């Protein structure tokens, strides 16, 4: 199981938890797992998010490996100028 | 729109008088902006730069006659003007960028009739007069009598300004113009102040003209400002009194460039500072 930190305003859709556990070996499994376990997150997941894995930010690379030791944090989708 | 560039004053007057919606083009730095913004749609533009004398600066009765198409840059390069009326030269030099200086004119700045025109308070302080030509011939009027209200002048249809006359510089006289803008360049005056004064042998002010711009619908000559200075050395309490009467005389509005309180206060500050510079010049020193 991978521990995933979600930002504060998403906790409403994760039964109040800011850290949830998902079974996942890749980013894709993580996102699918989140949407499955916490349907309330789906609108936000569909709008797009970024994910920090061990301090590096990923946007869309489904097959980015994730291990149980990885630090995984959901972020608002980053945009720049 | 038609464009004409007549060679004589008479031809220019005929063109202007014959066409409603005719505009004079000298430097064009205001006119072209208004054309572009579709604020004006002239039927005719009369370029006066090809009329003899319009680009000349000539000595006359101890003063200087400046053709209506003389640019700010040309004034800034004229040793006689710089010596006699540095405040007026500085004021015209503050209009726009170096590029705008290559074209902008005193007459245009006046005819644009913006309450914030930089050269106008300086000309009023210098007691400059204008030679206006028109269908009825030519007439001379004081600068202060030309602006009527924002965007409006007292010129009659068919008339245009042929030249500006700066009178002979009084002995022991000096002038200065200061304006406040948020940046260091490229802005319209939030407040402008022109001061021209004469010192007597004791270093007291014997004559003065104090004018303010951008703090009312048109340039104002602040008589009370002159009264605050006359008979006193231009320092200390006299300057404080001057600042107070200038702040009191100001009738500004709140707009995108400044607030009423700010403009009132700064009108006094600039009057004080401009007077100090004018006094230094009156003593024959450089400032």
């Amino acid at each position, binding site marked *: 199981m991978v521990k995933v930190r979600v930002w504060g305003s998403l906790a409403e859709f994760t039964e109040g938890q800011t850290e949830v556990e998902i079974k996942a070996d890749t980013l894709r499994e993580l996102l699918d797992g989140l949407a499955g376990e916490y349907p309330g997150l789906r609108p936000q997941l569909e709008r797009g998010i970024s994910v920090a894995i061990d301090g590096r930010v990923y946007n869309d690379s489904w097959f980015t490996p994730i291990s149980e030791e990885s630090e995984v944090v959901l972020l608002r989708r980053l945009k720049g100028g | *729109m*038609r*464009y004409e*560039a007549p060679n004589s004053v008479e031809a220019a007057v005929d063109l202007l008088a014959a066409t409603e919606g005719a505009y004079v*083009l000298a430097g*064009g*730095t205001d006119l*072209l*902006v208004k*054309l*572009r*913004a579709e604020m004006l749609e002239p039927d005719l*533009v009369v*370029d006066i*730069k090809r009329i003899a004398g319009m680009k000349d600066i000539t000595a006359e009765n101890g003063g200087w006659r400046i053709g209506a198409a003389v*640019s700010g*840059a040309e004034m800034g390069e004229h040793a006689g003007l710089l010596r006699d009326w540095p405040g007026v030269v500085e004021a015209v030099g503050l209009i*726009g*960028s*170096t*590029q*705008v200086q*290559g*074209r902008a004119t005193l007459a245009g700045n006046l005819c644009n009739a913006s309450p914030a025109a930089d050269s106008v308070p300086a000309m009023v302080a210098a007691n400059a007069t204008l030679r206006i030509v028109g269908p009825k011939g030519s007439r001379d009027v004081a600068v202060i009598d030309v602006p009527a209200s924002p965007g409006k002048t007292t010129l009659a249809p068919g008339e245009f300004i042929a030249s500006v006359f700066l009178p002979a510089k009084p002995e022991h006289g000096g002038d200065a113009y200061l304006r406040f803008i948020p940046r*260091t*360049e*490229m802005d319209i005056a939030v407040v402008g102040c022109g001061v021209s004064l004469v010192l007597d042998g004791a270093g007291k002010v014997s004559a003065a003209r104090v004018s303010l711009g951008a703090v009312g619908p048109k340039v104002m000559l602040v008589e009370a400002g002159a009264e605050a200075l006359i008979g006193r050395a231009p320092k200390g309490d006299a300057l404080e009194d001057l600042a107070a009467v200038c702040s009191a005389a100001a009738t500004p509005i709140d707009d995108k460039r400044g607030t009423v309180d700010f403009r009132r206060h700064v009108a006094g500050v600039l009057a004080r500072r401009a007077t100090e510079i004018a006094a230094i010049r009156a003593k024959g020193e450089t400032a």
Partner: protein
Amino acid sequence: MSQIHVTTSINGDATEFLCEAEDTLLDVLRDRLGMTGSKEGCGTGDCGACSVTVDGRLVCSCLMLGAEAEGREVTTIEGMATGDQLHPLQQKFIEMAALQCGICTPGILVAAKSLLEKNPDPTEEEVRYWLAGNLCRCTGYDKIIRAVMETAADLRRAS
């Protein structure tokens, strides 16, 4: 609406063109003569990207009618280099990275050349005030000012 026939000199070449009365010199240069080196950043004389000289005087070509060019001598950025020889200011601007996007560069070069012709030894303050009408949003002006000062010093040494 009949067009005006204008005979003028642009970068030393005798040039004739037809224009509408309301066409600015910038419109003429860009749209009628294909000289797009002069840029329109504002059309109101506030940005300096359209700077040219007319009879040796620096002006905004957006604030002058094309018709006014009759009999004048106009120089633009296209006339700044001589053959394959860049003007020293052009060379220095590249060397000192005095441009980023490059849209303001033609106007700044024309303006800076005009300054150095008048004043071969300007102070930093003089350069900054001379160029105050040339907006640059990329560089913060630092490298531009340095490039102009250094070119001036080079030219003084060379003369």
